[in-house]
């Protein structure tokens, strides 16, 4: 038990030493807090409420990020949009990671025809550009947030299969696994206690990176009109609605764009930081 604690402490210690990791964590944390504020309704205004007298107002003390062409508060809408982006991405990546890691580990461990099948099927998924596949799935499912989440989740599952399967193939031939089998441990125990820990680090890194791609895909889909439907705000949709307005009302374009960029930069930095912290070979000191 003690050993485990030290190990966890070690990873955190190394993580905190990487500047990019800390900066990334702070950026992501800000966005998460912002999203949580929106869940509990701590936004200055109702995101869909129209203030008819204040149409297209610039940023001011009343409307921090200004208002759009219906007089809706851009700040409240951006927070709500961030919440939707994060909800969809987190759901999608949880789905992809759970499915992908289970299939990946099983395929690597069981081998034979099962491995063949899983690899073939994931090859098929890899043969589509992610957004195109998501586009097709969303087109057939619908526009609700869980449809988008499901589509993105399906698209990213093969990445997790690949990430999980690789290390299993190497580890499975090692002596300590063979010995565990000779000792009569059940396959489940071997998978859980001896194989999973080896796959853990690359998966954690992958989760951070996938979250950033999922946010980009989600906002891309809603930009194209295939995600969240108006008047509900979503970051991609806000950018798309700002297109004709941006020339004279820059705030309608800049703020939602800025939020997407910040959260994606943050997640990428967290991914880099995690990779350095969890991979002993990369530790500088």
């Amino acid at each position, binding site marked *: 038990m003690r050993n485990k604690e030290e190990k966890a402490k070690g990873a955190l210690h190394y993580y905190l030493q990487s500047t990019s990791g800390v900066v990334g964590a702070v950026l992501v944390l800000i966005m998460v807090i912002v999203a949580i504020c929106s869940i509990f309704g701590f936004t200055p205004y109702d995101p869909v409420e129209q203030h008819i007298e204040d149409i297209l107002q610039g940023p001011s003390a009343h409307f921090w990020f200004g208002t759009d062409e219906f007089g809706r508060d851009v700040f409240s809408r951006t927070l709500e949009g961030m919440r939707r982006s994060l909800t969809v991405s987190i759901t999608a990546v949880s789905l992809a990671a759970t499915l992908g890691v289970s299939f990946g580990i099983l395929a690597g461990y069981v081998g034979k025809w099962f491995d063949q099948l899983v690899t*073939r*099927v994931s*090859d*098929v*998924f890899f*043969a*589509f*550009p*992610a*957004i*195109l596949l998501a*586009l*097709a*799935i969303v*087109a*057939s*499912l*619908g526009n609700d947030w869980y449809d988008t989440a499901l589509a993105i989740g399906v698209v990213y599952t093969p990445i997790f299969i690949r990430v999980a399967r690789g290390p299993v193939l190497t580890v499975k031939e090692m002596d300590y696994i063979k010995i565990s089998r000779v000792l009569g441990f059940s396959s489940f125990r071997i998978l859980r206690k001896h194989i999973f820990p080896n796959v853990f680090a690359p998966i954690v890194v992958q989760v951070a990176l996938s979250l*950033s791609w999922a946010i*980009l895909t989600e*906002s*891309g889909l809603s*930009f*194209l*009109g*295939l995600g969240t439907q108006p008047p509900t705000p979503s970051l*991609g949709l806000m*950018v*798309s609605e*700002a*297109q004709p307005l*941006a*020339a004279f009302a820059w705030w309608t*374009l800049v703020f939602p*764009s800025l939020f*997407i*960029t910040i959260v*994606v*930069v943050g997640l*990428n*930095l967290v991914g880099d930081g995690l990779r350095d912290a969890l991979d002993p070979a990369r530790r500088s000191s």
Partner: protein
Amino acid sequence: MNFRKVLKFPGVSRTLSVLTTLFGISVFVFLVLRVIPGDSITGAFGIETGALTPQQIAELRVYYGIDKSLFMQYISWMQSFLSGKFGFAYSTGVSVSTLTKSSLPVTIELAIIGTVLGVILGIAIGMFSAKKPGSTRDFAGQLFGLLALAIPGFVLSTGIVTIMANKFHYFPNGYEYMTPWENPWMNFQQMMFPGLVLGIAVAAPVMRTTRSALLETVDKDFVRTAHGKGVPNNKVQFRHILRNSLIPIVTMTGIQFGYLLGGAVIVEKIFALPGMGRQILDAIMKREYATVQSSIMIFAIMFVLINVATDIVYRKIDPRILK
């Protein structure tokens, strides 16, 4: 001759695996799009569908072949796909191959411009960054990589369009699209900015890969030897270091070229280019099964072929890979 021996011929097992992948893709694309609720008759006739009698709807279903079993529909789609017509758009009756003949070149041109710009930009910034790791210029290079990765293509495009059109009153994409044969100068102007947006997206991962590959190669013995025997520094940079770092860069470029095809969907929409991406998007909006299916299938085939091509290029640049 038995099956095992046939498999050993160069390219045979590769071709087989490509074919199975393509088969899987076709089944998948077919199934995903069949789940669409409202069928394509509703899509083609819009609100007028209500005016049709059940009798007429049934006849239309027979006419379009969507009354048959899924299996038969798949077979007839495949027949039409393999015959090169790719099926027909329900609403206009134009064959998907006619649509594709004009839209595919647009997307390919866009993808090539994007890749070329992205590779040049990515390798240049990667080399610039790797020269002095940890320095201010390295930081600037890496910041570029990070932002290029994080700013979505649609944000960049919208920004460019807004600034160009309103500050400089310059928006070539507002005019009708011109092919390079009709009006090369106009075509160049229309392709320049969408190509740049895609190029920046490609440059980010290429830059990161170049940087780390270069940093790894710099420490190799043969680089020290080259310096030691008095090879000019410039020549060492390109002939020894860059050449030996090319493998990961080519892999990354191959992967990115594929994703470019996806990015094209968004960029084509914003810059009003009549390419494959817009064709798919329009077809999805109009619920044109055949067009979506066949267009996505064509995309996927290109994607798979690019992966094969990447593999072949490997062997050309690195004779050490023999398999």
